[in-house]
């Protein structure tokens, strides 16, 4: 186990792609273990792919790429702009609301952050918002996209921890909306102090709002249809993922008439590459997952933790603090794959709901990709907007703080997370 951990961290810090680092680390366990034949390790790689819920990953990735080509994105931008650009820090508010609306059609924070940095970022900077503030708003705001269903992170957590993805999706709705409210408040406070103006002097008329909403109706209806389909119990999340792809095709071809065969092929190709990126990490981590269980790592960590305290809230808080620190250095997919099987068996016997824990864990872990030194969303936005990382770090403090306060609130009041799944499923 020590060899495994040392190999992983050494290779990763030397710049080896994470998928290979994790594969070689798992391999080292099987190669040096006298009882375990190497072929079991290879078998684990093949087995990791044979999970039905995991099929939801390529589906929602593909649906996201297709939605971007159906004209849904531009309609959602128009819609958010009508809704909130009259507030202080108008354009920054548009970014936050857009992340929320995009959350309903896309499951990836980094994809949303990249899109907003390309499309909205330059106009914010042109209106006098500082580069750091713009980058921080877009990067941390994209956390909402990852929380509102569909969410790739929650699918992965459900896959590893054997937790209902439908319940996880429903549980993400209220935290996602609270996140939006919290970040809008943060933007408003900063904008007031710095004099970032509103875009429009007057509030939009009901008619303008109605027209923008009606124009974006197919995008706005999608998350509702998705939750209804899963909630009805008729369809599994993977099947809903396949429906999402068909839905995007129908909207793109028949309703918006903006999708072409060439762009479908582009979307398929991009989805295949993204799927390869995510799945190679998942497949190779199959070996490490087996090693973790074989060495009874969860049990020994659980003993050490419960020796400190048995109070469920404190145990969860300790885990979250650990995850926050780990998230600073390690990529979120890896953390979910490796740490869910360790932490979930620790908290479940203490009476913590796996769905509640999943939302908390995913939020903290995904926040890691918005914080230095290792943060994919942060680097993506900063490199697209040409923002020095130091400036980003300073400006992101209030946003990260808001998220941490929200996580604390959600930890203390599980009802906020569990209300929807308990009421509806």
């Amino acid at each position, binding site marked *: 186990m020590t060899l495994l951990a040392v190999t992983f961290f050494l290779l990763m810090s030397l710049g080896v792609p994470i998928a290979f680092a994790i594969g070689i680390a798992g391999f080292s366990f099987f190669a040096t273990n006298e009882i375990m034949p190497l072929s079991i390790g290879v078998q684990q790689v093949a087995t990791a792919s044979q999970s039905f819920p995991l099929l939801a990953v390529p589906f929602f990735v593909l649906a996201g790429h297709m939605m971007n080509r159906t004209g849904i994105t531009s309609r959602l931008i128009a819609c958010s702009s009508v809704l909130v650009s009259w507030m202080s820090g108008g354009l920054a508010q548009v970014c936050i609301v857009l992340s929320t609306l995009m959350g309903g059609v896309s499951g*990836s924070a980094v994809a949303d952050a990249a899109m907003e940095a390309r499309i909205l970022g330059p106009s914010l900077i042109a209106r006098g918002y500082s580069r750091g503030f713009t980058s921080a708003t877009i990067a941390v705001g994209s956390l909402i996209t990852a929380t509102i269903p569909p969410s790739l992170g929650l*699918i992965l957590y459900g896959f590893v921890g054997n937790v209902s993805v439908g319940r996880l999706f429903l549980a993400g709705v209220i935290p996602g909306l609270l996140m939006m409210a919290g970040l809008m408040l943060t933007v408003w406070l900063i904008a007031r102090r710095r004099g970032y103006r509103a875009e429009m002097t007057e509030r939009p008329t009901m008619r303008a709002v109605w027209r923008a909403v009606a124009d974006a109706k197919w995008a706005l209806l999608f998350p509702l249809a998705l939750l209804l389909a899963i909630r009805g119990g008729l369809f599994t999340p993977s099947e809903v993922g396949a429906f999402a792809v068909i839905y995007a095709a129908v909207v793109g071809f028949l309703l918006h008439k903006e999708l072409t065969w060439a762009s479908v092929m582009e979307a398929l190709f991009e989805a295949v590459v993204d799927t390869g990126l995510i799945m190679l990490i998942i497949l190779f981590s199959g070996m490490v997952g087996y090693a973790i269980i074989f060495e009874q790592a969860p049990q020994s960590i659980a003993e050490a933790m419960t020796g400190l305290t048995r109070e469920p809230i404190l145990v969860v808080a300790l885990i979250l603090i650990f995850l926050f620190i780990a998230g600073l250095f390690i990529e979120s997919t890896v953390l979910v794959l490796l740490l869910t099987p360790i932490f979930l068996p620790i908290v479940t016997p203490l009476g913590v709901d796996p769905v509640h824990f999943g939302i908390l864990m995913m939020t903290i872990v995904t926040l890691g990709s918005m914080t230095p030194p290792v943060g994919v969303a942060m680097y993506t936005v900063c490199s697209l907007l040409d923002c020095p990382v130091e400036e980003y770090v300073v400006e992101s403090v209030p946003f990260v703080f808001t998220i941490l306060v929200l996580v604390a609130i959600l930890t203390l009041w599980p009802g906020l997370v569990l209300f929807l799944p308990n009421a509806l499923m």
Partner: protein
Amino acid sequence: MTSWIVKAEGLLASLLLAIIVLLVFAAGIMRWFGHPLVWSVDLAQLLFVWVSFIGADLALRKRAHIGIDYLVKRLPGQFRAALDLALGAVVLGFLLTMAVMGYRLTMLNLERQFGDSGISYGFVTAAVPIGCLLLAITLAGQMLRTAATLRSRPQPVFAPASTSVHAEELVP
């Protein structure tokens, strides 16, 4: 030549992904009408592991696999390229061993049935050796290119994720 292979790989994987979507969609619809199609989900699972490995190979060709370059980007170019070549050799050894072990396992698994479909489980296992072999070939090619330009224009083997535009849409 290579671009032709990339195109073929991309087309094949795209086609497989489209088929998987239709298979799962059909399974959902048919179950709704009371005629469940058991084999369609099994087949989708089987194709999925192939899409994953081919996709991984395409991503490697674009050098899009995420790595952490926080430390190594501070190294002088030539030193970093040399380090990458050494690490690449380790990865190459790993991939080739996986390919050999995977081949043996596939031979063992040929008899085993996959679900109720009557398809051999060997088709699933075979994706591991073939996928690892594809990755090994791509990586070897990239290492050769780095080695050839090591003195004149040192290039890292594993490109940093942050400068690659393609590295963005990958993480949940």
